[in-house]
C-alpha cells in the first residue's frame, strides 16, 4: 500500500465525486476481474459489470453508426447494441472465429443502466487482483489516450489493462455525426 504513487491516492479522493462525470480516473479496487484478450494484449473488466458471456451470434448491422458499432443482437427478447472493442481501440480488424466472444456488460449511462455487448478475441479467466498487484496507468503523452484505462495490474508476469468500461462506451455517441 505504501509504495503506491501519491497521484493514485489523489485519484481516490477525486473519484468520490464522480457523479458529475468529470474526466477523472475511477478508483481501482482490488477484487475479481474478468480478463480477456484483444490483439495479444490482456485486458480486465470488473466482474460486477459483466452480465453474460456468449459466443458470436448473428449481428444485425445498423446504418449511420461508426464502424466499431457492429450492430444489434437479440439477448433473450431484448435488443442490445454490440461494439467491437478492437475497432473501438483502433486495433486492426480481425475475422471472427470460434473463440470470438461477446461479453454483455451493464454500464451506467445518464439515463440508467444499459446493456451493451462487446466483442473480444477471447475470454481468458476470472482472476483476483489484489491491491498489491495494482499500478497506476502510466502516461503516454498526447499520442495515446489512456482515459479508458483505470489502472494496470501485474499478475504472473503479465500486464493486464483494467478498463473503465463505463467510459469506454459512454464518452461517444454510438451514432455517427453527419452534417
Amino acid at each position, binding site marked *: 500500500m505504501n509504495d503506491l504513487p501519491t497521484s493514485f491516492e489523489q485519484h481516490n479522493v477525486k473519484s468520490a465525486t464522480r457523479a458529475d462525470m468529470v474526466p477523472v480516473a475511477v478508483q481501482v479496487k482490488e477484487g475479481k476481474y474478468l480478463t480477456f484478450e484483444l490483439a495479444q494484449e490482456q485486458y480486465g473488466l470488473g466482474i460486477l459489470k459483466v452480465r453474460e458471456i456468449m459466443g458470436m451470434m448473428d449481428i444485425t448491422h445498423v446504418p449511420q453508426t461508426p464502424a466499431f458499432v457492429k450492430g444489434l443482437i*437479440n439477448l433473450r427478447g431484448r435488443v442490445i447494441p454490440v461494439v467491437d472493442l478492437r475497432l473501438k481501440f483502433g486495433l486492426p480488424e480481425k475475422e471472427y472465429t470460434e473463440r470470438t466472444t461477446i461479453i454483455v456488460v451493464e454500464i451506467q449511462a445518464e439515463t440508467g443502466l444499459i446493456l451493451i455487448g462487446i466483442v473480444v478475441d477471447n475470454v481468458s479467466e476470472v482472476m483476483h487482483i489484489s491491491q498489491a498487484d495494482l499500478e497506476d496507468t502510466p502516461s503516454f503523452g498526447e499520442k495515446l489516450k489512456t482515459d479508458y484505462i483505470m489502472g494496470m495490474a501485474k499478475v504472473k508476469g503479465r500486464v493486464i489493462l483494467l478498463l473503465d468500461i463505463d467510459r469506454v462506451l459512454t464518452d461517444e455517441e*454510438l451514432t455517427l455525426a453527419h452534417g
Partner: protein
Amino acid sequence: MSLEPQDIGRMLDDFNLGLVMADPEDLIALGGLIEKIEKLVEVFQSSGLVPAVDLLFSLKKAVESIILEQVADKEATMEQMGQGASLLQDIFRNFKAGIDASIDVSSFITTLKSQTTSGPVLTLDTSPGRPPESVWPGTETTPRTSERQVVRGPAQVNLEPYDVGADRDLFFSFITESIEHIQSIEVNSITLEQDPQNLETINAIFRPFHTLKGVSGFLNLPQIHALTHEVENLLDDARNERLPVSPAFIDAILDAVDLLKKMIRELKSAVENGGQVGTDFGLAAFLERIKAIQQGDVPAESAEEPSPYGGMKLGEILIAQGMISEHDLEEVVANQQQARLRQLGDILLASGRISRGDLDEALRRQLTADDRTKMIGEILIETGKIQPDLVSLAIKEQEKLREPKLGELLIRENQADAREVAAALREQKKFPTGTGLVTGQTVKVETVKLDGLVDMVGELVIAQSLVSSNDRIAAFKDQKLLRDLSHMSRITSELQRTAMSMRMVPIRQTFQKMIRLVRDLSRKSGKLVELDMDGEETEIDRNMVETIYDPLVHMVRNSVDHGIESPGIREKKGKDTTGHIVLRAFHQGGNVVIQIVDDGQGLDARRIISKAIERGLIAPEEHLSETTAFNLIFQPGFSTAEKVTDVSGRGVGMDVVKKTIEKLRGKVEVASRPDHGTTITIRLPLTLAIIDGMIVRVGTNRYILPTVAIRESFRPRPQDYFTVKGQGELIKVRENLLPLVRLGEVLGSESTYDHPTAALVVVVENEGKRRCLMVDEVLGKQEVVIKSLGERLKHIKALAGGSIMGDGRVGLILDIGGLFTISDGVGGRSWSRGGPTVADDFEMDEDWGMGPS
C-alpha cells in the same frame, strides 16, 4: 343499521381496548380509533341514543386534535377519553336495561374540550362575534357544526413550508393515489349533478376525500388536509340533507378538485426536484366560500328546479318527449317536495310520539303565511307537542328513507305510465350514472415488469417456433410429439394474447375526462351541450391513452366552440336547443376507431376554401372536392374560428391533432354536413407494441417497412425510369414521377441489383409525399413486436425501432420520414441530427416535373 345488543357491546369493548392500547404518537392506531368511533356513531344514531352520539363526536374530535397536534398533553387527553368510553358503556348498559338513557354527558364533553383547546399549537378561529365557546357547543347543537369550526384551524395555522424530501416513496404513492381519487371524484360529481338526491353518489365522492384527508394528515400536508377536510364536511352536510346539492355546491366541489390538482402538482414537482411546498393556493378564500355555502349564503338553486344546463333531469326528458306536460311536472315536483315534509310527520305519528290531531294542526299551521318557511318539526317543537330530541331522532330516521323518486310519483299520480318513465330513465342512464361508480378489481403492476413479461413471452413464442421448426424434430415421425408440440404452441399463443392484453386499458377514463370539459365549456359559452358516450369499454394501448388525450380535448373543444350553435340559433334552425356531442369508440378491422360526432353547424366548405386561398394554402383556381376541402383544416395555421374565445384558438390547431395521431401510426378523417354536424374519425392501431410490417431484403439485410406507409410495389419497366442531370433518379408511377431512393445506398448495405429495372420498387408515402424505395426483394408481410433500440441508438433517423424476427435475429424497422430526410441529404442537402423526422425542408412534391396529365 340494526344490530343485536351484544354486537354493540362487542363494538364498545373493542373500542375501549383500542383506546387503552393506542399510543398517542401512533397515527395508524389513532386512525383506527376514528374508524371505530364512526361505526359506533352509526349504530347509536340508528338506536336513537343522542347523548351517546354527541359523546362519540366529542371523542372523535379529541382523537383528531391529537392527530393534528392540537392538544397540550396527549396522554391526559387519552385518559379523559378513557373516561368517556366508560361513560359510553354506562349509557349503553342503561339503554339495554331499558332505563332512561339520558345520562348527562355535557360536563364530560366540556372537560374534554378544555383539554384540546388549551393546546399551544392550536390556533382556532377566534374572530369577533364567535367566542371560543361556540367552537365547542353543548349537546343541543348538531355535532357537525362544531367540527366545522374547529377545522377552520388548519387553514389558519401558519403553513410552514414542509420538507418533502424525507419520504419520497410515501409521497409518490400518495400522488398516484390522489390522481386516481381525483378522477373518480370528478366523474361522480357530474353524476351527482344529474341526480342530486343520490346518496350513493355523494358517498362515492365523500370516500375519496376522506381517504385523501386521512393520508394527507398522516403525511403532514396541512393544505391538502385542510381542503379535503372542509370539503368532506360540506359533503357530509349534503349527505345528511342539511344542504341541497345545488349547482353552486357542485361547482365548489369541482373547484376544490382543481385546487387539489394544483396542490398535488406542486407536491409532485417538489418531491421530484427536491424542495418545499409552501405556496399559497388561495386556500383561505376558498375555504371561506365553502363555509358560505354551508351556511346557505350562496343563493342555492333549489335542487328540484330544473337546472338550466342539465337537460338531463327525468322530468325534462319526459317533457321533451311529449310524455307529460310541463304543468303536470310542476304539480308532481311540488308534491315530491311535500312528500318529505309529510314523511317526518308520518314517522313521528308511526312511533306514537304525536297524535294525528297534533300533526294535522301543525301541517295546517305550516300552510299559513307566518310559518311557511318552518319545517314541520320546528312547528311541533314550538307548539310544545314534542321534545327536540325526539324530532332530531325522527329526522335521522328520515334520512335513511329516501325521498320518493320523481318517476315513482309520476306513476303513482297517473301522470305518466311506467313504461314511459322507464324509457326516460334509460335515456338518463346513458349518461354515466352508474358507470362512474363501477371500479374493476385491479392489481397495480410496475410498467417495467409488464414490459418484461411481454418481452419474455415474445421470446418464448420465438423459441417455441425454433424448436418446432428444427429439422431433427420435424424428422421425428412421432404422433405424440407432434401433438404435444402443437399443444404447446396453442398455450404460447394464448399466453402471448394475454400478455398483450395487459397493455390494454379501456378508453373509459379518457372519455370521462371529457364530461368535465364539456360541462365547463358549455357553462362558459352559454351553450347547451349534452355529451353522450358509446363504447367506453373499448380497449386501447396503455401508452396511447395519454397521447390521445390532448387531441381529444382539442376536438371536443372545437365541437363545443365552433360546432354547436348557441341555443337561440339552434332554435331558429328548428333544432333541439341542446346540442349533442357523442364520443364513440369501437374496434374495426384491427383498428381502434374513435369518433367525435356533433350535431352542430357543420363545416362550411366554401369558407374553408376561401380561407385556405387567403392563407396561401391552395391556389385560387384549384378545384377541390368537399372532402379535400374539409381536410384542409388539418393544415398548419388554419382556423375557421371567427372569434377567438377563451377556450379555443389558443394555438393548438388541428394540424397538431393530426401530427399526434400520425405519430401513433393512426389516421384522422373529417366528414361534415352543413347544419347536421361534423364527425371526426380517428383510426388507431390496436397497440403500439405491434406493427404491421412488410419485410424487404436489400443484399443480406432485411428491413421492415410499416405497411401503413406502403402504397404499392412493382418492378419498373425501362421506359418508366428517368434521370435528372445524371444524378436524381425518377420512376414514373402511372402519371406521376416519383423520386427514387436506393435503400441500400441510404442504409449502407450492398444491393444485389444495381438497376431498379432489375430490382423492385416499393412506393411509400409520408406526410403526403411519395417516394419509390428500391429493394431487392419483398419477403412478405408480418406483424412484428417493436423493440426500442435503446438510448444510444434512438437518434438514428432511418430507424423507428427493432424487432426480433422469427429466426431470433434482430430486424430493423424503418422510419419512412427519416428515410426521406436522409435521402435528401444523400442528394446533396445537409440535414441535422436529432431534429424531427419530418421532411419539412423538402419542396418536391409528387407532381415534381410533371403535373397530372
